[in-house]
């Protein structure tokens, strides 16, 4: 007997209904979670609590110069050395594996939120990631953001919502929101990926085993071409006017101006080639030129280390990170090259 159209509709409707069964599970998993501070990104966001110690640290040091950034900053600048040996009282909010969303919250909630008014705040970034609010915002990196986010972050949420307006993002988000599949997926994914490590190494040694596994696939162990590909900027993100509108950059500049704090954005040089500095694609060159003009028009400083002949390949350790042996020298040169911002 052939399937009737009614029976077909029954099968299809049932198939479409089943995923909604995840929603109670999602609610159960997030029963004790605080309301999301980024509802446009994840309505069921589970977060780590706000950590006031970063602000307290700043208040203790009372720096005139503050550095914000990720491991690019961490492998280049030594704020203690800058304070003690060069006489520029400095501190930083440095967190590896972060992007512009973190840097924005660091400026708003940690630096300005601590009540301090440093003379200059330096923000370190690579290529286009200053205007890419989604950079390092996925769940595996988001815990760092949680530590400096308040219960509500409407401006950041609005930027993320705007960024997600294009394409099918709203549909994807709506499906995740309606079914709760995002939160169940994260839990299930984490459990599944952890299971082999637990089975092989045992529950008590799983952390050490994961670290050893990560070392096996570390950047310095990659084939040279793969490493080079990973370091190439995605040209799709290099339309500056379009990227600016869905980024936290205007809000950072507005905040700094409102609090009479000078902002200086520092583009680090990526890993040089053996025979010279890294080469920017034409799209990236246009992007950087537009960024420079926009920052100048809006009263913010900008310094680009790309192409600086002082920083050759032997300064670098892995990828775009510099070797620990260069930090003090880099810090000294930084103070010289950006002297106007230390006045």
């Amino acid at each position: 007997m052939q399937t009737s159209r009614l029976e077909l509709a029954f099968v299809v409707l049932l198939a479409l209904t089943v995923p909604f069964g995840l929603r109670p599970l999602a609610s159960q998993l997030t029963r004790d979670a605080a309301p999301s501070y980024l509802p446009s990104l994840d309505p069921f966001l589970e977060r780590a609590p706000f950590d006031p110690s970063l602000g307290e640290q700043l208040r203790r040091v009372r720096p005139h110069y503050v550095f914000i950034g990720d491991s690019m900053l961490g492998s280049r600048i030594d704020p203690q050395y800058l304070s003690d040996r060069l006489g520029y009282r400095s501190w930083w909010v440095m967190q590896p594996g972060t992007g512009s969303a973190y840097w924005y919250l660091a400026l708003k909630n940690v630096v300005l939120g601590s009540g301090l008014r440093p003379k200059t705040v330096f923000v370190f970034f690579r290529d286009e990631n200053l205007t890419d609010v989604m950079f390092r915002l996925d769940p595996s990196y988001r815990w760092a953001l949680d530590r400096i986010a308040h219960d509500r972050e409407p401006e950041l949420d609005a930027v993320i919502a705007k960024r997600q307006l294009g394409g099918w993002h709203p549909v994807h988000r709506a499906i995740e929101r309606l079914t709760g599949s995002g939160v169940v997926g994260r839990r299930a994914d984490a459990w599944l990926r952890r299971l082999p490590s637990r089975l092989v190494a045992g529950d008590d040694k799983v952390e050490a085993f994961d670290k050893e596994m990560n070392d096996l696939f570390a950047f310095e162990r990659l084939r040279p071409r793969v490493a080079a590909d990973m370091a190439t900027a995605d040209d799709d993100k290099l339309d500056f006017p379009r990227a600016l509108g869905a980024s936290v950059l205007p809000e950072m500049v507005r905040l700094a101006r409102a609090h009479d704090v000078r902002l200086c954005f520092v583009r680090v040089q990526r890993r040089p080639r053996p025979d010279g500095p890294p080469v920017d694609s034409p799209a990236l060159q246009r992007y950087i030129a537009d960024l420079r003009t926009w920052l100048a028009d809006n009263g913010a400083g900008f310094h680009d280390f790309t192409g600086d002949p002082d920083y050759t390949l032997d300064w670098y350790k892995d990828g775009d990170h510099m070797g620990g042996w260069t930090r003090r020298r880099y810090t000294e040169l930084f103070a010289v090259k950006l002297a106007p911002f230390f006045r």
Partner: protein
Amino acid sequence: MIFHSLDFVLFFLVVLTAYWRLPHRAQNRLLLVASYVFYGWVHPWFLGLILFSTTVDYWAARWMEDDPARRKVYLGASLAANLGMLGYFKYANFFADSIATILEAAGLPASRVTLDVTLPVGISFFTFQALSYTVDVYRGQLRARRSFVDVATFVALFPQLVAGPIERASALLPQVEGERRFSADAARTGALLIAWGYFKKLVIADNVGLIADKVFAVEAPGFHVLWAGVLAFGIQIFADFSAYSDIARGVARWFGFELMVNFDNPYFARSPQEFWRRWHISLSTWFRDYVYIPLGGSRRGLPRELANVMMVFLLSGLWHGANWTFVLWGGYHGLLLVGQRLFRRFVPVRAPAWLAPLQIAGMFVLVQVGWLMFREQDVRMLLRGLTLTPAGASPIDVQAGLALALLTGLYALPLVVQGIWSEWLAGPRLLEPPRARTPVRVAWLAGQGLLAGLLFAGILVFRSRASMDFIYFQF
């Protein structure tokens, strides 16, 4: 346009809704336009290639029939146009580079020229499909068609256009020409195929693909990590490619077409010959019918038969990609088949049934060795991989290899369950509902809806966050 995008979901729903409201001729015109939109979605200039191939083959076939005395010339034109296009877009740089290497090795001056050529997706698939039409007309097995729209729809039918199955004109053209009726039965089984295909692609292939990518990105992986990566790739390529075929077959059923089965549990094969009867069936049979048999097949003595097998598999390797590692992979499988044929010739004993699990395991291992050749693009690294031994492996290499293999196994579990089910248990009977309109039938239908829903939920929960293109797009 790619299947695993919401663009495609919307496209499918719009085209489907319009399609069943139209009379037959208009349906074909709509399918043609939709297929061209599908193909030219990202690079509209690709359409020029498919139009060129279709036009040449349409007229070549007609002139063959109108002027039989010169049919060889027209077949030659069709072959030259299709293979020439394929050769230029897919192999130009490969051949130029290989010639330069040979010249340099011989101590002669050579300048390396690299052409800025973008490989159009699916070119290997639609050119082979189009060629099946002209060759069949040449052989007198098929009549040349008068309707350009029908021929063009056959060449470009969107569900299977970019990654197969490579349909034969004799199977698909009559379906294009004949009246089609909406069948809820076909749509129901099609929906299940689509759901299973998406699950295989987004959950299994994309997740284990990340493992393979990680391993093959490392400069010097140890023995255990390397083979865990190869295993992951073996699962990825099967899940990925068979997913495309399943989605293609499922989508086609909603439009009233039946496409051929392209994969039949290949990892349960017991011998090289059986593997190729189960893996990428549409390509294997294409090479059998259009290359192996015209070369003489097994009719001209053992040496010629074995040479024909090697020729077919070297060409098949080259079809997959413009790199010597693909040729090596094809040659490897050719040698396996040659070995099997020689073994059968001199040891004409059938293996006892109890040996089957060992045969399956052995064949699985042999296929994985082939996947190392297929996945590794660098000949130096390939040689390193093939000569690695487990002796002296570090404890972390053993543990990491085991952990990666376990993770691959976890993702591949649904594939194994489905394979065992379809191979030895219920098989296709699963798709047949009880005949009478009884509560059992309702429960059975509910079970199918539930199964599709669980696949859908599984996709939402376990899908890889890094979705990749279908692997076979690059071929």
